[in-house]
Protein backbone atom coordinates (compact mmCIF):
# COMPACT_ATOMS: atom_id res chain seq x y z
CA UNK A 1 0.00 0.00 0.00
CA UNK A 2 1.03 3.69 -0.33
CA UNK A 3 4.34 4.65 1.25
CA UNK A 4 2.95 7.69 3.07
CA UNK A 5 0.82 5.40 5.22
CA UNK A 6 3.88 3.91 6.90
CA UNK A 7 4.04 6.21 9.91
CA UNK A 8 0.37 6.79 10.62
CA UNK A 9 -0.78 5.33 13.95
CA UNK A 10 -2.92 2.77 12.26
CA UNK A 11 -0.15 1.20 10.26
CA UNK A 12 -1.19 -2.36 9.54
CA UNK A 13 1.42 -4.91 10.52
CA UNK A 14 -0.40 -8.14 9.79
CA UNK A 15 -3.66 -9.43 8.37
CA UNK A 16 -5.54 -12.71 8.43
CA UNK A 17 -8.51 -13.71 6.29
CA UNK A 18 -10.77 -16.66 6.87
CA UNK A 19 -13.69 -17.59 4.64
CA UNK A 20 -16.08 -20.28 5.80
CA UNK A 21 -19.65 -21.53 5.31
CA UNK A 22 -22.33 -20.50 7.79
CA UNK A 23 -22.37 -23.75 9.73
CA UNK A 24 -22.80 -23.28 13.47
CA UNK A 25 -19.90 -25.65 14.15
CA UNK A 26 -17.66 -22.98 12.59
CA UNK A 27 -18.43 -20.45 15.35
CA UNK A 28 -15.83 -22.11 17.56
CA UNK A 29 -13.40 -22.58 14.71
CA UNK A 30 -13.60 -18.90 13.71
CA UNK A 31 -12.94 -17.51 17.18
CA UNK A 32 -10.20 -20.07 17.86
CA UNK A 33 -8.45 -19.17 14.60
CA UNK A 34 -8.77 -15.43 15.27
CA UNK A 35 -7.56 -15.93 18.83
CA UNK A 36 -4.51 -17.86 17.66
CA UNK A 37 -3.68 -15.10 15.18
CA UNK A 38 -4.20 -12.25 17.68
CA UNK A 39 -1.99 -14.06 20.24
CA UNK A 40 1.10 -12.62 18.49
CA UNK A 41 0.10 -9.21 19.90
CA UNK A 42 0.46 -10.65 23.40
CA UNK A 43 -2.99 -9.62 24.62
CA UNK A 44 -4.08 -10.25 28.20
CA UNK A 45 -6.22 -13.33 28.78
CA UNK A 46 -9.16 -10.99 29.41
CA UNK A 47 -8.69 -9.07 26.18
CA UNK A 48 -8.48 -12.30 24.21
CA UNK A 49 -11.59 -13.68 25.90
CA UNK A 50 -13.49 -10.46 25.13
CA UNK A 51 -12.48 -10.52 21.47
CA UNK A 52 -13.35 -14.19 21.07
CA UNK A 53 -16.74 -13.62 22.65
CA UNK A 54 -17.43 -10.61 20.39
CA UNK A 55 -16.45 -12.67 17.32
CA UNK A 56 -18.76 -15.43 18.47
CA UNK A 57 -21.65 -12.95 18.61
CA UNK A 58 -20.97 -11.58 15.13
CA UNK A 59 -20.58 -15.01 13.53
CA UNK A 60 -23.74 -16.25 15.24
CA UNK A 61 -25.65 -13.32 13.76
CA UNK A 62 -24.51 -14.35 10.27
CA UNK A 63 -25.66 -17.92 10.83
CA UNK A 64 -28.91 -17.21 12.66
CA UNK A 65 -30.05 -14.04 10.91
CA UNK A 66 -28.19 -13.28 7.67
CA UNK A 67 -28.37 -16.83 6.36
CA UNK A 68 -31.40 -17.96 8.32
CA UNK A 69 -32.70 -20.61 5.96
CA UNK A 70 -29.70 -21.22 3.81
CA UNK A 71 -26.00 -21.78 3.79
CA UNK A 72 -23.90 -18.76 2.94
CA UNK A 73 -20.35 -17.54 3.03
CA UNK A 74 -18.86 -15.64 5.94
CA UNK A 75 -15.64 -13.70 5.55
CA UNK A 76 -13.65 -12.75 8.62
CA UNK A 77 -10.66 -10.41 8.33
CA UNK A 78 -8.43 -9.66 11.30
CA UNK A 79 -6.15 -6.62 11.01
CA UNK A 80 -3.33 -6.00 13.46
CA UNK A 81 -1.93 -2.48 13.76
CA UNK A 82 1.33 -1.04 15.03
CA UNK A 83 -0.49 0.97 17.73
CA UNK A 84 -1.77 -2.32 19.17
CA UNK A 85 -5.29 -2.01 17.89
CA UNK A 86 -7.04 -5.02 16.45
CA UNK A 87 -9.81 -4.68 13.90
CA UNK A 88 -12.02 -7.62 13.10
CA UNK A 89 -14.37 -7.43 10.14
CA UNK A 90 -17.09 -10.03 9.74
CA UNK A 91 -18.93 -9.86 6.47
CA UNK A 92 -21.85 -11.77 5.06
CA UNK A 93 -23.92 -11.47 1.89
CA UNK A 94 -27.15 -12.40 3.59
CA UNK A 95 -30.48 -10.78 4.30
CA UNK A 96 -29.14 -7.56 5.81
CA UNK A 97 -30.70 -5.46 8.57
CA UNK A 98 -33.47 -2.99 7.72
CA UNK A 99 -33.05 -0.87 10.86
CA UNK A 100 -29.53 -1.14 12.25
CA UNK A 101 -30.19 1.33 15.05
CA UNK A 102 -33.11 -0.70 16.30
CA UNK A 103 -31.22 -3.98 15.97
CA UNK A 104 -28.45 -2.57 18.15
CA UNK A 105 -30.84 -1.76 21.01
CA UNK A 106 -30.47 -4.04 24.03
CA UNK A 107 -33.01 -6.86 24.16
CA UNK A 108 -34.15 -6.32 20.58
CA UNK A 109 -34.73 -9.68 18.98
CA UNK A 110 -36.62 -11.03 15.99
CA UNK A 111 -36.80 -14.37 17.74
CA UNK A 112 -40.22 -15.61 18.74
CA UNK A 113 -39.49 -18.70 20.82
CA UNK A 114 -37.71 -16.71 23.52
CA UNK A 115 -34.41 -18.53 23.38
CA UNK A 116 -32.42 -15.60 22.02
CA UNK A 117 -31.45 -12.88 24.44
CA UNK A 118 -31.34 -9.97 21.99
CA UNK A 119 -28.04 -8.92 23.53
CA UNK A 120 -25.64 -9.77 20.70
CA UNK A 121 -24.82 -6.23 19.58
CA UNK A 122 -24.81 -4.97 23.18
CA UNK A 123 -22.24 -7.63 24.07
CA UNK A 124 -20.09 -6.75 21.04
CA UNK A 125 -20.28 -3.08 21.98
CA UNK A 126 -19.38 -3.69 25.61
CA UNK A 127 -16.46 -6.01 24.90
CA UNK A 128 -14.77 -3.81 22.30
CA UNK A 129 -13.83 -0.13 21.96
CA UNK A 130 -15.86 0.49 18.84
CA UNK A 131 -18.57 -1.38 16.99
CA UNK A 132 -19.55 -0.42 13.47
CA UNK A 133 -22.42 -2.07 11.64
CA UNK A 134 -22.89 -1.48 7.93
CA UNK A 135 -25.88 -3.20 6.41
CA UNK A 136 -27.99 -3.19 3.33
CA UNK A 137 -31.23 -5.22 3.18
CA UNK A 138 -30.91 -8.04 0.70
CA UNK A 139 -27.20 -7.48 0.23
CA UNK A 140 -25.58 -8.25 3.52
CA UNK A 141 -23.94 -6.94 6.65
CA UNK A 142 -20.42 -6.04 7.72
CA UNK A 143 -19.65 -5.82 11.42
CA UNK A 144 -16.41 -4.12 12.48
CA UNK A 145 -15.02 -4.68 15.93
CA UNK A 146 -12.14 -2.50 17.07
CA UNK A 147 -10.20 -3.08 20.25
CA UNK A 148 -7.07 -1.37 21.52
CA UNK A 149 -4.88 -3.77 23.43
CA UNK A 150 -2.99 -2.84 26.57
CA UNK A 151 0.22 -0.82 26.16
CA UNK A 152 2.31 -2.99 28.43
CA UNK A 153 2.80 -5.75 25.95
CA UNK A 154 4.48 -8.67 27.67
CA UNK A 155 3.50 -9.23 31.29
Amino acid at each position, binding site marked *: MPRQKRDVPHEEINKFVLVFPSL*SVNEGAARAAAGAFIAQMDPTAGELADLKCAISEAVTNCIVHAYRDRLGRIRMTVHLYRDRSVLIEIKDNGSGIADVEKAREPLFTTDADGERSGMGFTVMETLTDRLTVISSPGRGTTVKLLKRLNERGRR
Partner: protein
Amino acid sequence: MIKNECSFTAEEKGRTLTVVVSGEIDHHGATALRRGIDTLIWEKAPQELRLVMAQVPLMDSSGLGFIMGRFRLITESGGSFVLVDPSAAVVKMLRLTGFDKKVRTERSTAALKN
Protein backbone atom coordinates in the same frame (compact mmCIF):
# COMPACT_ATOMS: atom_id res chain seq x y z
CA MET B 1 -7.79 -28.67 18.85
CA ILE B 2 -10.98 -26.66 18.92
CA LYS B 3 -12.90 -27.25 22.08
CA ASN B 4 -16.33 -26.40 20.83
CA GLU B 5 -18.13 -29.49 21.94
CA CYS B 6 -20.48 -28.84 24.82
CA SER B 7 -21.44 -31.73 27.01
CA PHE B 8 -23.31 -32.30 30.25
CA THR B 9 -23.82 -34.86 32.96
CA ALA B 10 -26.92 -35.04 35.13
CA GLU B 11 -27.74 -36.39 38.55
CA GLU B 12 -31.14 -36.76 40.14
CA LYS B 13 -31.53 -36.65 43.90
CA GLY B 14 -35.09 -36.64 45.11
CA ARG B 15 -36.81 -33.90 43.16
CA THR B 16 -33.60 -32.02 42.50
CA LEU B 17 -31.92 -32.34 39.14
CA THR B 18 -28.29 -31.26 38.98
CA VAL B 19 -26.84 -30.68 35.53
CA VAL B 20 -23.12 -30.12 35.10
CA VAL B 21 -22.33 -28.34 31.85
CA SER B 22 -18.90 -28.13 30.25
CA GLY B 23 -17.47 -26.52 27.13
CA GLU B 24 -17.65 -23.22 25.29
CA ILE B 25 -21.30 -22.23 25.11
CA ASP B 26 -22.09 -20.43 21.90
CA HIS B 27 -25.10 -20.79 19.60
CA HIS B 28 -23.82 -24.16 18.37
CA GLY B 29 -23.17 -25.51 21.84
CA ALA B 30 -26.35 -24.08 23.32
CA THR B 31 -28.47 -25.82 20.68
CA ALA B 32 -27.02 -29.22 21.58
CA LEU B 33 -27.27 -28.62 25.33
CA ARG B 34 -30.84 -27.38 25.11
CA ARG B 35 -31.99 -30.47 23.25
CA GLY B 36 -30.53 -32.87 25.80
CA ILE B 37 -31.35 -30.97 28.96
CA ASP B 38 -34.93 -30.10 28.04
CA THR B 39 -35.68 -33.75 27.33
CA LEU B 40 -34.36 -34.57 30.78
CA ILE B 41 -36.40 -31.81 32.44
CA TRP B 42 -39.48 -33.08 30.67
CA GLU B 43 -38.88 -36.65 31.82
CA LYS B 44 -37.89 -35.92 35.41
CA ALA B 45 -40.10 -32.88 36.10
CA PRO B 46 -37.76 -31.69 38.87
CA GLN B 47 -38.77 -29.28 41.64
CA GLU B 48 -35.34 -27.70 41.51
CA LEU B 49 -32.88 -27.43 38.66
CA ARG B 50 -29.26 -26.81 39.60
CA LEU B 51 -27.07 -25.81 36.68
CA VAL B 52 -23.37 -26.19 37.47
CA MET B 53 -21.33 -23.94 35.18
CA ALA B 54 -17.81 -24.03 36.57
CA GLN B 55 -16.33 -25.64 33.47
CA VAL B 56 -17.39 -23.03 30.94
CA PRO B 57 -14.32 -21.14 29.66
CA LEU B 58 -16.31 -19.05 27.16
CA MET B 59 -19.92 -18.06 26.88
CA ASP B 60 -21.62 -15.60 24.56
CA SER B 61 -25.19 -14.26 24.54
CA SER B 62 -26.47 -17.56 23.10
CA GLY B 63 -25.30 -19.12 26.35
CA LEU B 64 -27.16 -16.43 28.21
CA GLY B 65 -30.27 -17.27 26.18
CA PHE B 66 -29.72 -20.89 27.13
CA ILE B 67 -29.64 -20.06 30.87
CA MET B 68 -32.64 -17.72 30.59
CA GLY B 69 -34.60 -20.35 28.69
CA ARG B 70 -34.01 -23.07 31.31
CA PHE B 71 -34.73 -20.55 34.08
CA ARG B 72 -38.06 -19.77 32.46
CA LEU B 73 -38.89 -23.41 31.77
CA ILE B 74 -38.43 -24.45 35.39
CA THR B 75 -39.91 -21.39 37.12
CA GLU B 76 -42.99 -21.33 34.89
CA SER B 77 -43.85 -24.83 36.07
CA GLY B 78 -43.46 -23.74 39.68
CA GLY B 79 -39.95 -25.05 40.26
CA SER B 80 -36.81 -23.23 41.29
CA PHE B 81 -33.62 -22.57 39.43
CA VAL B 82 -30.14 -22.32 40.91
CA LEU B 83 -26.93 -21.48 39.11
CA VAL B 84 -23.96 -23.18 40.79
CA ASP B 85 -20.32 -22.07 40.56
CA PRO B 86 -20.59 -19.96 37.40
CA SER B 87 -17.20 -19.42 35.73
CA ALA B 88 -15.78 -15.94 35.14
CA ALA B 89 -17.08 -16.00 31.56
CA VAL B 90 -20.59 -16.83 32.76
CA VAL B 91 -20.54 -14.20 35.52
CA LYS B 92 -19.34 -11.56 33.06
CA MET B 93 -22.19 -12.27 30.65
CA LEU B 94 -24.78 -12.28 33.43
CA ARG B 95 -23.55 -8.96 34.84
CA LEU B 96 -23.33 -7.37 31.44
CA THR B 97 -26.99 -8.03 30.83
CA GLY B 98 -28.30 -7.51 34.36
CA PHE B 99 -29.56 -11.07 34.53
CA ASP B 100 -27.37 -11.72 37.60
CA LYS B 101 -29.96 -9.94 39.73
CA LYS B 102 -32.69 -12.27 38.60
CA VAL B 103 -31.06 -15.65 39.01
CA ARG B 104 -30.12 -17.32 42.29
CA THR B 105 -26.44 -18.20 42.39
CA GLU B 106 -24.64 -20.51 44.79
CA ARG B 107 -21.03 -21.35 45.39
CA SER B 108 -20.40 -24.95 46.29
CA THR B 109 -18.06 -25.76 49.17
CA ALA B 110 -15.58 -27.25 46.71
CA ALA B 111 -15.44 -23.96 44.81
CA LEU B 112 -15.10 -21.91 48.01
CA LYS B 113 -12.04 -23.91 49.07
CA ASN B 114 -10.17 -23.04 45.87
